């Protein structure tokens, strides 16, 4: 190869890479369901963390999210969606559970 043309070849390669990158990303995002799954998994993760912030996280929620991710990576979007939604609901209820007890209440069965 002619050495004087090398810089322009490199330049061309860089340009191609820059142009191609978003196209590749767009390819993955083509399936609108996959995007929806990721959105739901993120929402579930946020709900789980919110429950943890009031020390009220359940052991079941993280497991559901893990399963949702596994299903998503296998392309089983329907399953992933169901699991992620369940995880989000659990996270929300767990947060409610913790937040509703922010004040100590001594149960009636313990008499002072």
């Amino acid at each position, binding site marked *: 190869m002619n050495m004087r043309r090398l810089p322009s070849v490199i330049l061309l390669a860089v340009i191609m890479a820059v142009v191609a990158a978003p196209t590749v990303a767009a390819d993955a995002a083509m399936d609108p369901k996959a995007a929806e799954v990721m959105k739901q998994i993120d929402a579930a993760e946020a709900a789980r963390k919110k429950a943890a912030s009031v020390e009220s*996280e359940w*052991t079941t929620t993280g497991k559901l999210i893990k399963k949702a991710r596994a299903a998503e990576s296998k392309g089983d979007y329907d399953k992933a969606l169901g699991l992620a939604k369940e995880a989000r609901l659990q996270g929300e209820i767990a947060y409610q559970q*913790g937040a509703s*007890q922010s004040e100590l209440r*001594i*149960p009636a*069965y313990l008499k002072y």
Partner: protein
Amino acid sequence: MSGHCDGGLRSNIEPNCLEKREIMKKTLNKMAILLLLGGVVFTAQATTPEEDRAAFVKHYKFRFPDVPMEEYPNGAYAIDKIGRENWEAIEEFPPYEPFIDEGQEMWDTSFANGKTYKDCFSDGPGVASQYPRWDKKQGMVITMALAINQCREANGEKALKYKKGPIVPLLAYMAFESRGQVTNVVIPEDDPRAMEAYEKGKKFYFTRRGQLNFSCATCHVQNTGLKVRTEVLSPSLGHTTHWPVYRSKWGTAGTLHRRFTGCNRNIRAKPMKAQGEQYRNLEYFLTYLSNGLELNGPGARK
């Protein structure tokens, strides 16, 4: 109310009763003031640690009128006759004995820098009744397990894991050397953060958690003496006297915070970190409840 002053605590009858009378007096004073103010309505008033402890004692005495106070360090075996027979057979050849021996060896072995545990624990290995305690300088509850690791790190050694492994034999040896001491958790009045830590531990204890929605109190207060499957639920009085515990189910010995982890998991609540703030505060509260009870660690359980 005064019922449990005559029965129980062998070594502590006098101070407990005196304290109780103090509380009664204070309560009466408060009531008098309220009457003077003219029918002031008050809801859920904060209770003092001593009022908390008295409420637990009263509750269990009502539940188990035939169980003397000094039996509570034996956990479920204080109230479960069948379980007790098995346990007594196990105690003939204590499964925790090798741990005590191993722990003594650790205690006697010096660190790489030539120092030993004795340089941190100047009173020797039998110091379990000094923990958990409020440390004003560090602004936190210090448990014996934490003190061990602080000692190690101060001497250039790696910290040990908190639920199982080599910390267990060391704790077992120290517990064994502390047998016969009496639980005596103090909440110093010169630092309001100590009371805060106690209150946080209490809050943790009474908070319902996990998908199954239980609090510690649901099982160990409300339903103590009853069974989940075949497990008789122990009273919380005595929960802290006998650690570490050799548990048949574990096939080895483990720490109190490992037990907390298990009790949280069983109700599908994500456990907190062993020796993290939550569990240390919980230990502070839980151990306070056992004030006056004799230390009898290490223990053996199903």
